[in-house]
């Protein structure tokens, strides 16, 4: 670790991932996860056993949080990422509204702990780490962008709540139009973050938007929804990490 920007970036990613893991664990411990649903309904496990596995996964996520801050604990983070991948696949297998979008939507929360692990292993934010972050941000924005273009009802309601909050007359047609624009911008950002050039403006926009849309969950439905907001903190932290990493470095005089 040679650069203070890199340190800041790593700690940003660590904190964002830690918050995400807290949110995910709280949500599972409160209401269960799609892994439970899949094991119980599709794999025909007894309810108590499926619940036990679900809770075990949630507790393992909590146990992974300290590992984010320990340089050599990358194996635990990879296991956490693997579990989160299983959650995304279970969501796709048991979900309802365009379930094939779930793995893309979840990409940041899956790949953030993996990026921290890679960073710890490789001891620098080299190309594999940065591409992991880029792909994570791109998939998350692409998934949400497509959902917006498809007019997801919940997103329409979010847009309506923002209109209401701004004192405007809520209009579903207007909300759907807004959502269409949001979808286009999200997909464009998803593509832009993948171009070889380091587009810091795109990264900071994605970080801001990821943070705002995460906060929208509590704005829309109240503080009881805090796990929903926290679990989406990776959507902000991942592009913010890229933004910090891509800060131009001062030239070293010979």
């Amino acid at each position, binding site marked *: 670790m040679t650069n203070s920007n890199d340190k800041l970036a790593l700690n940003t990613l660590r904190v964002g991932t830690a918050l995400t893991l807290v949110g995910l664990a709280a949500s599972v411990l409160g209401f269960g996860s799609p892994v439970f649903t899949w094991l119980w309904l599709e794999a025909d496990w007894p309810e108590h056993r499926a619940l*036990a596995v679900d809770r*075990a996964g949630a507790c393992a996520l909590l146990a992974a949080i300290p590992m984010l801050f320990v340089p050599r*604990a990358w194996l635990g983070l990879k296991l956490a990422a693997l579990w989160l991948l299983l959650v995304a696949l279970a969501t796709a297998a048991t979900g309802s509204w365009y379930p094939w979008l779930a793995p893309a939507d979840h990409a940041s929360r899956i790949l953030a702990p993996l990026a921290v692990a890679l960073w710890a292993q490789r001891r620098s934010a080299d190309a594999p780490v940065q591409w992991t972050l880029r792909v994570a941000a791109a998939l998350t924005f692409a998934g949400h962008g497509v959902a917006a273009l498809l007019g997801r009802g919940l997103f329409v309601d979010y847009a309506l709540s923002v209109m209401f909050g701004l004192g405007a007359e809520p209009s579903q047609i207007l909300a759907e139009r807004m959502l269409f624009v949001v979808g286009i911008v999200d997909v464009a950002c998803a593509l832009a973050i993948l171009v070889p050039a380091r587009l810091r403006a795109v990264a900071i926009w994605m970080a801001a938007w990821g943070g705002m849309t995460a906060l929208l969950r509590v704005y829309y439905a109240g503080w009881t929804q805090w796990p929903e907001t926290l679990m989406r903190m990776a959507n902000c932290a991942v592009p913010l990490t890229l933004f910090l990493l891509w800060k131009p470095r001062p030239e070293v005089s010979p």
Partner: protein
Amino acid sequence: MNRYLPHVAVIVLMLGAAVVGMMTAPATSVAEEGGVAGAGAAGPAGKAPAQWRVTWGENPAREATISWSTKEATEVNTVHYDTRALKGDVPSYKHKVQAQTSGRYTAKSFRLHYHHAKLEKLEPNTAYYFCLGSDDNFTREFFFITAPDTDADLKFLYGGDSRSDREGRRTMNRRMRELFEADPAILCLVHGGDYVADGSNMEQWNDWLTDHELTVTTAGRMLPVVPARGNHEAGDVQYDEIWADTGGRGKNYYKTMFGSQVMVVNLNTEISAGGDQAKWLEETLKVNPKIRWQLANYHRPAYPAVKEPSVAKQHWVPLFEKYNLDVAFESDGHTIKRTVAIRGDKPDATGVTYIGEGGLGVKQRTPDPERWYFKDGKTGSASHVQKVTVTKETLTVETILHNGKVFDTWQGKPRTR
């Protein structure tokens, strides 16, 4: 050796946490399931009409959509109907209506065709006898009875979630048939959604539609369905192909009047709840204050027994409370539940009671009876259907299990609006 120590520590820590998680998982009861094996049912064959059903929308006293499926495409699809029983003598039926819409259900490879014939200008509270015809293939005679249009006492069934346990579903369909046969005053089934696990999968719908035939009584009386869209049908065009666009294609929210004094608002939790739908709901409740019994039917619950609250709580509950809805029927949780009356997110005798959670053929979960709204309420875990009995003085909701036992009874009185 030292280099492996951190990894060993990590694995020990995660395994320890996992064990803690497993040990803190609450004990669950074993769901009481019907599981009575039924006759095998492969579905339609050739051009013979099958998977018959009656769908009710806004005005079940005057209108009904009769639908059926054929395996192969057919040219001429008709309903021959009369108010007299004619034992299937097709030329004798006074009325004949062509299916207004026919087509192939949307599916990659599975072939099945739908036919919908809307009957209009019907007489209220009247038995209509009919035969279905596709090309030269005709069914036996069936009948259904239109809803009354007066302030009459009436009954209907409510249930949801018939998606993942076929034998359980067939058991519940037989249970509904038995209830229907024993009590001819039952008008229909109000369905709370989640018919199948994957609403885009026509093989699953094919099984569901075939199983629905089990609700037809021995005498041939059909149990009309008032459908609502569930999350497992969210966004799937097959839902509208099966339920003939009830409530508008993709929108699927509408009110149904049973007689002059029972209104059911059927809502869709899978689209925007706060936009046009909420406006429609408010307008509907606002302009009908004199209707004595006002009920709602939708899939994902505002006051769930196991899951987290849906968008219904945010957008519809305030309207239910403002306009003094009597009961909201909810599904999705795969449990039995009846809440205490709720207003302002706390117990209040003047509030709304939430009943249901879905048990028409899906494994049952163990509910969380510790939630505040179940104090003085009721929870359980077994396949079930609700029987709703409406008179001028009372509205009674009985939760009937797959074995016919009454698990819970709730009664409400008319309220001032």
